């Protein structure tokens, strides 16, 4: 606990001092007087000397990216899992295994060819370029598939007798039943999207599309000067907040979902 929390605390303390006092001499352990000043600077002005736009803009970019990826992944994977589990079509098992095999290829492995494709499609420096290549998700498809397999066949049959076609069954029965899984996945995928680093670093050159995680890296990585640690630390604290908020907020929802679900 201490090992995890202490660095975060030090980051917070550092974000409340001015440029010099934290780097000279022993680091203070209590918050200093410049909290509001530092945070308003990083939020609204950015660190112009460090080549970073205001943090609000980067946060917005990160938010768009994380939300699009989370929602997109859930939407696509729940639909493909639905197809794989409930429909008979040629090469169904083969299709499943193809999806499953892609689990073995993380973003980093396929990053160069993906970059090439995105560049050729002129999607560099755009939200589409930031999100679309990351949306396909074998993991989520697999999780939904496993969940769908636990839904009793009789439920499907009861729905058929109740005149619910495939679309109706999906929206009226399967989707509400998957609520808990969707909430859990959303948390995981939002954080996954928020923490993307390498991909935004590669495909954005326009500072309008910088995301927060890569922005911090840029701020800390200056040549011929001291990084402005107090500003960087403010950015770190702010960048860490949304995932925490998502976890806290969604946790209530999916704990509620967990206690309500029953087969």
């Amino acid at each position, binding site marked *: 606990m201490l090992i995890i929390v202490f660095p975060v605390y030090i980051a917070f303390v550092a974000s409340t001092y001015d440029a010099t006092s934290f780097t000279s001499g022993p680091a203070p352990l209590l918050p200093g007087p410049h909290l509001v000043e530092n945070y308003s600077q990083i939020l609204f002005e950015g660190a112009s000397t460090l080549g970073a736009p205001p943090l609000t803009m980067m946060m917005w970019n990160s938010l768009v990216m994380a939300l699009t990826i989370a929602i997109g992944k859930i939407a696509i994977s729940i639909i493909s899992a639905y197809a794989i589990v409930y429909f008979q079509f040629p090469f169904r098992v083969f299709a499943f295994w193809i999806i499953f095999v892609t689990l073995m290829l993380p973003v980093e492995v396929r990053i160069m060819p993906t970059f090439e494709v995105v560049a050729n499609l002129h999607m560099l420096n755009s939200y589409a370029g930031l999100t679309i290549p990351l949306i396909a998700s074998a993991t989520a498809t697999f999780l939904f598939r496993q969940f769908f397999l636990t839904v*009793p066949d*009789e*439920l499907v*049959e*009861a*729905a*058929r*007798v*109740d*005149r*619910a076609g495939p679309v*109706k069954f999906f929206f*009226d*029965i399967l989707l*509400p*039943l998957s*609520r808990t899984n969707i909430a859990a996945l959303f948390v995981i995928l939002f954080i996954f999207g928020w923490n993307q680093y390498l991909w935004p670093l590669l495909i954005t050159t326009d500072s309008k599309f910088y995301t927060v995680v890569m922005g911090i890296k840029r701020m800390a990585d200056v040549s011929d000067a001291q990084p402005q640690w107090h500003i960087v630390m403010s950015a770190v604290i702010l960048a860490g907040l949304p995932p925490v908020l998502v976890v806290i907020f969604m946790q209530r929802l999916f704990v509620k979902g967990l206690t*309500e*679900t*029953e*087969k």
Partner: protein
Amino acid sequence: MAMIEITDLEKTYQGGIHAVKGINVSIADGEFIVLVGPSGCGKSTMLRMVAGLETITGGTVSIGDRVVNDLDPAERDIAMVFQNYALYPHMSVRQNLSYGLKNQGLPKAVIETRVAEAARILEIGDYLDRKPRNLSGGQRQRVAMGRAIVREPAAFLFDEPLSNLDAKLRVQMRGEIKQLQKRLGTTSIYVTHDQLEAMTLADRLVVLNGGVIEQIGTPLEVYRKPASTFVASFIGSPAMNLIAAEHADGMARVGDASLNIRQQLNGTKRITLGIRPEDLLPVSAGTAGALPLTVAYVEELGAQRLVHGHVGGQSLVAAMDVERDITDVVHVTANMAALHIFDVETQQRLN
């Protein structure tokens, strides 16, 4: 309300498993038919083919005057009650009942009337707004029935609906299903492996074995005149004794004893005698036709006791009065009027 006509019904699964082999049943309007048989006899497959949940690979099923082979379950005008109830867990009881009607596009007022009516009949009005998980097994069972009733279908299909309930509740629900079906007068097909449930519910029984019909008849017909050794051993509890005997001139020899079966069987030498435990009467040793039963153990049932033992190496069970003393060897003879005689080869009834 409709009659159901099942003609030469066949089911062969992919992979060549022949589950249902040419079944013919004609079910009258308002009749309660019970399909009974051991697991794997094809009874559920048959029901699911009537429901449209399983494709028909041969023969026809017609409900009312329509051949429904190629119709969707929803278009067959049937309602099904599943073994595990298959209630939608995220919907309240009211939503569960009205979901199918809503999908049919019925007006709201009609749906409400029907749900209220079903709730009244089944006495589930108090928990219409609860979710299925907050209901007991018996209540869920009622909701599952309710979902069938609100649809006002031509036929009810029950797929072992009571097997998830405890014994006491099962007896109670059995009675309720019977009364309900009589009151509504809806043609019903009910699948079970429990012969007692089958006997008590059915207007007519269809006894299935290995995908073919062994016998169709009223519960009493099936009980009193089982058509084959299979039906004889399946229907009735405790099960009927089936013992091998040699036949000559109207007498059947079992070990050293011989029974006068009072009829000539042409050419048949080896037969199987079927005697229900309650049709074995204690007699004193030396009486004509007395079988010496060497007692192995005794089961007390309260109203009677079951004496297990063997005669000439063949096991035999006799139901006896609890007042009677049991000795090592008890002499019994069969009530000839209730004797069943089967061919050893064909296993069919001979008398």
